[in-house]
C-alpha cells in the first residue's frame, strides 16, 4: 500500500502518531515483572484499606472537625509500619524500590476509600520527587538514609515540599510567570550557607514532616534565575511551623504554614543553586529551573490524576451500593434504566481517568523521569541484586561528585525538549481531566442519593469536599490546561504564545 518511507513520513507529521498513542508503542518495552509488582502493590493497598483505611477514614475526618488542631500521628505510624514511606524509594537509596508507576494504582486504591489518607501516605513522594530531581546525590543519600531508619525505628521520617507562597501559587509553578509574581521567600548567601527569610503556605504534611524541600530565591525580582533548592529539618533555628490551615476537605492531611526568620541553612543541605548549575550544563539557569519543575510535575500531576480517578471511583462505588440497596416504587433502584445509565456514565469516568494517568506514566517511563529505572537490564539488576550490594558497593559512591554530576546530567540536562513536552503535557492532561471527573462523579452520586448522600457517615459528601482540592493543587486546572497547550499544541504552531496576552 505505502512504502516504508511514506509511512514514516505520514506518522511523523503533527500530531505524531507515537506521541498520540504511547501505550501502543511502549507497553511491550515494559519489564514483565513490573506487572506482578504492580499487582502486589494493589493487593497491599486493598489489605490496608480493609484493615486500616475503611475503619478509620470517616472517624478521623470527623475528629478533625471536632478538634481543629488534630494531627494524624497514629495514622502516620501505621503507614510507616506498613512500610509505605520507603516502598517507592529506589533500592539504591535504601528503599524497597517498587516501580514508580505502580504508585498511581496504589493511590487509586487508597484514595477510593479516603483521599486524606492517600495524601498522608503519598505526599511524602512529592517531597521525594523534589529531593531527587534536584540531582544532588549526596543530600539525597543523607535524607533517604533517615527515611529508611525512620521505618526501622518506628519513628517516621516524612519529606514535605515547600514551594507555594502566600502571594504566589500559580506563579511559582510556571517559569514564564515567576519573575512577574510577588515572591517573598528570600535566601541570602552568607559564609557556609544561606540565611532564609519568608514563608510558605498550604504545605501538605508540613507539621508531620522531618525534612522539607525548600525553594528560596536570592533575587526576588529574578527568582527564575536565582532559585536555591535546599533541605530544611524540623527544629532548625529560625524555622517554625505555624497555623494548621482550616480546609474544606482532605482534612486528615494537614496543610501547614512554614515561617523562616533568619534561618541559617548550611551549604551541605543546599542541593541546587545557580552556581552549581554551571557545573553540569551550558544551559541557562532559568531553563534548568523549568526542567526541574517540569520533572517534578511530570510525576506528581499524573499522581494527582490517580487521586482524581480514586475520587471518581469512591463516588461511583458509593452510588452503586446505594442503588443496589435502595428501593423506589417497590423495586431496587439498580434495576431502573436511568440509574443504570447514570452508573455507566460514572464507571466510564473512572476507566477514562485510569487511561489518562496510565498514558502519562508511559510518557515518564519511556521519555522521562522513570526511563533509566525502567530499562530492562537496569530494572532487573535493581530488583534482584541483594540489598548488601547496594549498601556496600553503591551507597558509598553517592557521596562522590561524579554521582551528583551524573544524577544532575541525567535528570536535568539530557532530556530532549520534545520528550519533556510530552511528559509534562500528558501529566497536565491526566491532572485536569481526572480531577474534573472526580468532582463530576461526586456530583452525580449526590444527586442520585439525595438526603442519604448528604450525611457524613455515608462518605460521599466527604469525597466531594476532598476532591475539590485536586482541581487546585499541583497547579490549578486552568494552569494545567495552559501547560498542555504550551507543551502539546503550541510547539506545532510557531505563532502561538503562552502567558503573554
Amino acid at each position, binding site marked *: 500500500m505505502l512504502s516504508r518511507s511514506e509511512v514514516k513520513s505520514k506518522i511523523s507529521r503533527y500530531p505524531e502518531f507515537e506521541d498520540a498513542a504511547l501505550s501502543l508503542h511502549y507497553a511491550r518495552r515494559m519489564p514483565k515483572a513490573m506487572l506482578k509488582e504492580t499487582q502486589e502493590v494493589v493487593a497491599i493497598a486493598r489489605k490496608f484499606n480493609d484493615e486500616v483505611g475503611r475503619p478509620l477514614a470517616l472517624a478521623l475526618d*470527623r475528629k478533625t*472537625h*471536632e478538634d481543629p488542631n488534630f494531627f494524624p500521628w497514629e495514622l502516620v505510624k501505621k503507614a510507616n509500619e506498613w512500610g509505605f514511606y520507603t516502598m517507592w524509594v529506589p533500592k539504591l537509596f535504601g528503599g524497597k524500590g517498587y516501580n514508580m508507576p505502580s504508585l498511581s494504582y496504589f493511590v487509586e486504591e487508597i484514595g477510593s476509600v479516603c483521599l486524606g489518607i492517600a495524601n498522608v501516605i503519598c505526599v511524602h513522594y512529592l517531597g521525594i520527587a523534589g529531593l531527587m530531581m534536584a540531582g544532588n546525590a549526596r543530600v539525597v543519600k543523607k535524607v533517604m538514609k533517615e527515611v529508611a531508619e525512620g521505618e526501622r525505628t518506628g519513628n517516621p521520617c516524612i519529606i514535605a515540599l515547600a514551594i*507555594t507562597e502566600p*502571594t504566589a*501559587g*500559580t*506563579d511559582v509553578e510556571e517559569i*514564564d*510567570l515567576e519573575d*512577574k*509574581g*510577588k515572591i517573598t521567600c528570600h535566601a541570602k548567601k552568607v559564609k557556609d550557607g544561606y540565611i532564609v527569610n519568608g514563608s510558605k*503556605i*498550604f504545605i501538605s504534611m508540613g507539621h508531620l514532616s522531618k525534612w522539607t524541600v525548600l525553594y528560596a530565591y536570592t533575587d526576588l525580582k529574578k527568582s527564575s534565575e536565582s532559585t536555591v533548592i535546599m533541605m530544611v529539618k524540623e527544629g532548625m533555628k529560625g524555622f517554625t511551623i505555624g497555623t494548621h*490551615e*482550616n*480546609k*474544606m*476537605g482532605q482534612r486528615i492531611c494537614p496543610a501547614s504554614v512554614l515561617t523562616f526568620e533568619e534561618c541559617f541553612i548550611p551549604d551541605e543541605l543546599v542541593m541546587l543553586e545557580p552556581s552549581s548549575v554551571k557545573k553540569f550544563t551550558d544551559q541557562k539557569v532559568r531553563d534548568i529551573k523549568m526542567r526541574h519543575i517540569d520533572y517534578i510535575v511530570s510525576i506528581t500531576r499524573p499522581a494527582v490524576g490517580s487521586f482524581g480517578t480514586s475520587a471518581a471511583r469512591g463516588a461511583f462505588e458509593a452510588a452503586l451500593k446505594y442503588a443496589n440497596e*435502595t*428501593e*423506589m*416504587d417497590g423495586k431496587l433502584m439498580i434495576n431502573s434504566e*436511568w440509574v443504570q445509565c*447514570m452508573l455507566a456514565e460514572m464507571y466510564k469516568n473512572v476507566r477514562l481517568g485510569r487511561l489518562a494517568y496510565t498514558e502519562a506514566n508511559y510518557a515518564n517511563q519511556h521519555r522521562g523521569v522513570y526511563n533509566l529505572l525502567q530499562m530492562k537490564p537496569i530494572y532487573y539488576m535493581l530488583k534482584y541484586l541483594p540489598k548488601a550490594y547496594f549498601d556496600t558497593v553503591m551507597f558509598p559512591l553517592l557521596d562522590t561528585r561524579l554521582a551528583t554530576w551524573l544524577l544532575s546530567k541525567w535528570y536535568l540536562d539530557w532530556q530532549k525538549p520534545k520528550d519533556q513536552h510530552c511528559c509534562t503535557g500528558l501529566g497536565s492532561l491526566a491532572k485536569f481531566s481526572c480531577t474534573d471527573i472526580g*468532582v463530576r462523579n461526586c*456530583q452525580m452520586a*449526590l*444527586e*442520585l*442519593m*439525595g*438526603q442519604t*448522600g*448528604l*450525611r*457524613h*457517615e455515608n462518605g460521599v*459528601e466527604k469525597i*466531594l*469536599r476532598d476532591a*475539590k*482540592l485536586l*482541581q*487546585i*493543587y499541583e497547579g*490549578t*486546572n*486552568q494552569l494545567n*490546561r*495552559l501547560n498542555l497547550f504550551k507543551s502539546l499544541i503550541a510547539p506545532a504552531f510557531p505563532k502561538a504564545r503562552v*502567558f503573554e*496576552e
Partner: protein
Amino acid sequence: MITTFNPDLKPFEELAISFAAKELSKSVEEHDRYPFGPFFSEVLDKAYEVGLLGITLPENFGGIGQGISTLCTVLDHIAQVDSSLGGIILTNAISQEIMTSGDGELAKNVFADAASSSSFLVAFPSFSNPGQTANMPAAERSGKDFTLKGRLEFLVLGNIASSALIPGRLSGTDGYSFFLVDLSDTGAKKSEPIFTLGLHACPAVDVDLDGVKSRLIGAEGGGEALFEAASNKLHTAAAAMSAGIMKGSLGEALAYAKERSQGGREIINWSEMRMILANMAVKTKVADLCVAQACRAIEANVQDWGHFSMSSALHVHELSCELVNDGVQALGGNGYMKDYGQEKRYRDARQVQAFLGAAPLKKLCLIKEMIG
C-alpha cells in the same frame, strides 16, 4: 430581579439585606461550626422577632402574610451571606404551607400562640419527598387522635423545634398522611444532630417514635396531595436560595479577582479568569430571571405554574452546583479555606439542590405530571 418587577417588595428586600449584614455576615464561619460549635440561637430569635420565620403565613396566624415573591426575595439575600438560616426559613415555610392547607384551625393555634422561636418552628423532613421514601413511621388510630411508631430520618429542625410535621402510613389507607407531633413527648427519641455536607446551622436529626400521640393534618391518606401543593410552590423558594448562593459566590470571586495578582497583574486581567467569571455571571443572571419569572407564574396562577416552578428550580440548582465549583476555583487555594466564603457555598449549593427530594426523582415527578 423580583423587586425590579415588583418595587412594592423593596422594604422586605432591605430588611433581608440589613439582617444578613448585621446578624449573619460577621460570624458565618463560626455559625457553620455547628454541631461542633454552638448553635446560633440568638440569630434565630432575632429572625423570629422580625418575622422572617413566617413570611408566607397569614397575618392572623402570626405570620406576615406575604406571597412567594417576598419569600424568594428574602431567601435570596439571606443565602447570599449564609444559607443555613435560609434552610430554616424554607423548612418552616413548608410546614406552615402544609399545615395551613391541611388544618387551618390547628395551624392558627400552633403559630399564632407561639411564644418563642422554637414553638414557632415546626420540624419537617424537607430533604425528601415522603411519597418516594420507602420507610416512614406507622400510624394507628387512638380515639380521636393517632399514635406514631417507627423511625423517621433527617427531620430538619428536629432538635430546635417544639413540634414536627411527620409523614406516616395509616393502616388500611392508601398513601401516607401528615401528623403533628409534640417533640417533647417522651416517646420521641432524637439522635445527635446529623453531620451534613452543608447548611450546618440548619440542623437535622433522626427521630424514633414509640407510640407518640399525634394529630392528623388534612385527610387520611391525603399527605401526597398536601406535599405536592406545597412543594410545587416552594421549589421556587429553594431555587431562590440557590440563586442567592450564586450571587454570593460571583460577588466574592469578582472582588478577589480584582485584588489578587498573578504574573504581575490582577488576575481579573487574564482572559481565562474573565471567561470563568463571565460563565458565572451568565448562570447567575439566568438563575435570577428564572426565579423571578417562576414567582410571577405562581402568583398569576398561570396554567401549569407548578411545572414552571419545578423546572426553574431544577435548572437553577444545576447551574448553582456548577457555579460554586468555579467560585472556589477563582480563589485558588484560598477558596478552599474556611477563611473565605466559597467553600461553604460549594457545600451548601449541593445541599440546597436536595431540598424536597433528590434531583433525578424530582425530574421523574415532573415528567410524570406532564404526561399524566
